[in-house]
């Protein structure tokens, strides 16, 4: 496995992070080393094994279709870095 600086740029973009030019190589080396190690997983034969995303055999956990919540806008907006007219405010998104 060879993590290139391009890969670093790509995953940083996916994660919405900035990796400065100076850091890129170091980060690439770090990730490369970690992923090399992770690839030791390939030593285990997993043919025909069902991937396990839930550890307990639970299923069908539902709630009934009932409205239980009230307006708590003031509370929910309390932590907003910027708000306006009862809404969260961000720099404009339209092209």
């Amino acid at each position: 496995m060879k993590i290139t600086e391009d890969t670093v740029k790509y995953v940083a973009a996916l994660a919405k992070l900035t990796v400065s030019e100076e850091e890129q190589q170091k980060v690439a080396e770090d990730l490369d080393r970690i992923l090399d190690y992770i690839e030791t997983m390939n030593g285990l034969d997993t043919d025909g094994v069902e991937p396990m995303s839930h550890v307990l055999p639970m299923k069908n956990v539902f709630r009934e279709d009932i409205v239980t919540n009230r307006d708590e806008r003031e509370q929910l907006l309390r932590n907003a870095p910027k708000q306006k007219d009862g809404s969260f405010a961000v720099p404009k998104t339209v092209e």
Partner: protein
Amino acid sequence: MKELTKMSALEIGRMIKAKEITVLDAVKAQLEVIKERDPEYRCFITVLEEEAYAQAAEVQKRIDAGELEDSPLAGVPMAVKDNICTKGIRTTCASKILYNFEPVYDATVIEKLKRAGAVIIGKTNMDEFAMGSTTETSHFGETKNPWDISCVPGGSSGGSAAAVAAEEIFYALGSDTGGSIRQPAGYCGVAGMKPTYGTVSRYGLIAYASSLDQIGTFGRNISDCAAALEIISGHDAKDSTSVNAEGFQYTKSLVDDVKGLRIGIPKDYLGTGLEEDVKESILKAAEVFRSKGAIVEEFELHSVDYAVPSYYVIACAEASSNLSRFDGVKYGYRSAKAEGLQEVYKNTRSEGFGNEVKRRMMIGAFVLSSGYYDAFYNKALKVRAIINEGFQRAFEKYDIILGPTAPQTAPALGESLSDPLKMYLSDIYTVSVNLAGLPAVSIPCGRDSRGLPIGMQLIGRHFGENEIIRAAYSFEQSEQYERPAAIAAESKEGKSSVLQEGIGHESI
């Protein structure tokens, strides 16, 4: 007053019920010790002095009204890891990105604690977003190990573990995703318990890796851990992965009896990488169990080496998704120097997260990205299935699996940060328990040549908490609880341990 803080949580609870002391006495004593010691150990991110006094008065009223008869820890001061939401009280995950975040609701465990009359006295330090094994990555500074302040307390729940060890708190909550309760418990010489996945509601626990995270408890002995776990466990309709069972009874297993208990020690846990002192202590502990009538055997667990890589893939993948919501829009930090939406995202996240968190989010993004999903993420899920199967097979033969909590004792501050891979590898004995969703406890089982505590891990089958609690309790009856030298030196009684008195299960 300081003598009070040496008691066990259950003992303080009993004294409050018996009107030997008031809730206020306990709270005052605890706050006094925190003020004195925390500047050095930095176990807390937030100490709730005023709120604690207010809570103390309220709980005292409820106790006097006879409301909390069935609540053995009513009025006992406790602390909560800072990734568990407390309504109106800052909850930071030890990250700059949540430096000012005040949740609008209480986590289910907090609701349960309040109902049981707990007095929450503070929010404890941790590795940023619970990603780390040292509690050095906190935005609020590292916590120090009360046994040796040049060493780390372990992590990520290092603040909770160190606070319990330093007698800054009677008991505490932590969260355990890959060992984050058991490993610091081991390094700090206290008991730490991670229950079966689904036993404690995750509602209000700020997620690191959703399929692995579980809230658990710290105490200076297993009795306190079990009593606290009894409060916070149980079904919660707000958490779809919470098991539909009520009334977990843990304290009934505080019995000194392991006769006939089948204990397996994975040979794979005693191999390379394990420090000699640790190995010796574990084998000695095995002898203690044997002498008490347990059947102890070594066996092959297999696939042990694949647990850490599988764990890191799954944990990082889930984390990269879970931590995406911290984007400067709804809460927490927003970069001041950001023009346009993309900069709000990128600058906020780049400035708000520390290096280890960023590293894991990038690994997570990578293993899920198109072209790599099957080779990494899906592969890790299959490895997980095989690891789980290995445990299931082992539990056909054994009631409990015994081994070290960590391959070593607490490393020096700064030692791990430079080499993330080495730090990841130190989780080798703990992560597989999370992958398989099993319950496990770490209790002290001796000290190494430097005098640092060694932790022993007891792993149970799914919902096998009662067996590991019984084993841990039995072991504790043969091993006196030791406190860090600096803490013990302050005790008038010297080495005599108040803690050991009156914690038999009759007192519960």
